[in-house]
């Protein structure tokens, strides 16, 4: 088995969930080295080790620089001597940037939107297309490391009880102009309740709600069920709710135990973000709405009748 590098992303000293998901897959495929930009690698070495990384290589603090050029260049240099079999990135803001920069540096392709990787005489990435009805299986040719961009929630994060990862340094070469973008300040948009991509129950609303003022029904129901409120892009673009609520291809991928879609048609781009939910309940007045094709329970009805009755029935 070869060596698999995994892009480790961290937030305030904890490893992000997508990284733990990638580690779960990577350790099936080979020896795992976590590669990390910014922050203190010592702080996360134990958690990375517990999830199967033998080593973590870190650039250390980037001093406001973005991870794309810094980590991309560092990895390109190291890949030349270490020749990992594959480098796995999550489809995240940072992951995409690093993978893109690295790809251009190495003159090697990236296989994107992957939901699984299988070893079949070389690593094969599986990409769902046409709203998840078809899978395209792609393999790298040539001898360069395979760069994969993997969708969140593709694998289950699970600790294996390994010892802390050995910490090493990753050298960032002189970046010149490419390194000149700097983060000057950071803003966190607080929301209460569980996070959309971690909640056990997600209730999402779409254009079928009719107007922004009706979105509170989605929030009320989510609250009653201890879940998070989400949205289709139609109502995000319309300004009813912030972008952080968006579920789908260009929003969040969610995989709750229960997903309730109210007044959402079920466009391909929405479905790729919630199709993996364990059970799906849809409320839509149009019996032909595509969302019903993937619903475990579909109610053909008016959200303005079903939702208030449901909220009332759930009591206090």
């Amino acid at each position: 088995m070869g060596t698999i590098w995994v892009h480790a992303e961290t937030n305030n000293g904890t490893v992000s969930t997508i990284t733990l998901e990638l580690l779960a897959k990577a350790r099936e495929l080979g020896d795992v080295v976590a590669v990390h930009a910014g922050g203190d690698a010592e702080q996360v070495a134990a958690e990375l080790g517990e999830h199967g990384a033998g080593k973590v290589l870190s650039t250390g603090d980037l001093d406001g620089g973005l991870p794309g050029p810094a980590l991309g260049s560092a990895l390109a240099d190291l890949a030349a001597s270490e020749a990992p079999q594959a480098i796995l990135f999550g489809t995240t803001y940072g992951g995409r940037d690093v993978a893109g920069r690295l790809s251009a540096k190495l003159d090697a392709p990236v296989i994107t939107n992957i939901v699984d990787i299988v070893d079949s005489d070389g690593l094969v990435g599986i990409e769902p297309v046409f709203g998840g009805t078809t899978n395209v299986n792609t393999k790298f040719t040539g001898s360069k490391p395979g760069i994969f961009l993997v969708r969140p929630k593709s694998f289950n994060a699970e600790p294996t009880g390994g010892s802390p990862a050995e910490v090493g340094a990753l050298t960032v070469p002189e970046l010149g102009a490419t390194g000149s973008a700097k983060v000057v300040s950071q803003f966190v948009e607080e929301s209460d309740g569980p996070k959309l991509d971690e909640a056990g129950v997600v209730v999402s609303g779409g254009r079928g709600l009719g107007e922004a003022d009706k979105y509170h029904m989605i929030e009320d129901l989510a609250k009653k069920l201890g879940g998070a409120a989400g949205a289709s892009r139609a109502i995000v673009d319309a300004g009813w709710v912030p972008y952080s609520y968006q579920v789908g291809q260009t929003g969040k991928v969610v995989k709750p135990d229960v997903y309730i879609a109210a007044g959402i048609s079920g466009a391909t781009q929405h479905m790729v973000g919630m199709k993996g939910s364990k059970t799906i309940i849809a409320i839509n007045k149009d019996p032909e709405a595509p969302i019903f094709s993937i619903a475990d329970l579909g109610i053909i009805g008016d959200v303005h009748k079903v939702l208030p009755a449901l909220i009332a029935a759930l009591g206090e």
Partner: protein
Amino acid sequence: MKVAVCVKQIPDPADPGEIDPNTKTLKRDTKLILDESDSYGVEMALQLVGDDGEVVLVSMVPNNERNGLNNALAMGAHSALLVSDDALSGSDALGTAKVLAAAIKRVGADLVLAATESSDGYTGTVPEQVAELLGLPSVTFAKEVSVDGGNVAVKRQTEDGYDEVTCPLPALVSVTAGVVEPRYPSFKGIMAAKSKPVEELGLADLGIDAASVGWAGGGQEIVSIEPAPAREAGEIIEDEGDGHERIVAFLQELKVI
């Protein structure tokens, strides 16, 4: 200021087409349209340059198709560079980026705009690859962009909010949907678009080796295309005033309540 905007022309997403099993590429029989994702970049560029700047479009497309480009010109962009070449068939994101980077170099822009991801390819890697090939700094996922002197300031979307990022020009910025509200082309704009300069180029004009792009330069191969496992059909019922009760019963069964 001169802004180059990458605009992709794509089959109408409302009519998704299919993969040709022989060539393993997307069949493109219909007229191509401007990718909606790129209409935001075009609008952003128009607003940033104001009255005395220039917006140049860059598009790589089969057969010199320009229907989508015309739309962006009608919005107000000044000129366009259109790259087509038979050798580009099967180009992946990196191959596309090589072509766009060469075209942008020819244009010589202060700022390059692209969308964070296209509607049909959605690899989301092309802009960052273009930036690297041009040796430019970049800021992806912009939800607000302003230019002040020699710098671009960007509010960049993050997992839990946004970062304020500044970057000296020349630079590349990729914008999200909603960064600005794209205008509809006016009748005057549509008429004016017809006489705007569109330069048509092939690979040789850009000095690109055909072996480094297209299927030949891809470095990857599709090994198979298969139907994905389908979800089992569920129970669909008509609400007759009892829809909510069915949901409550279902949630109880699932032990959610």
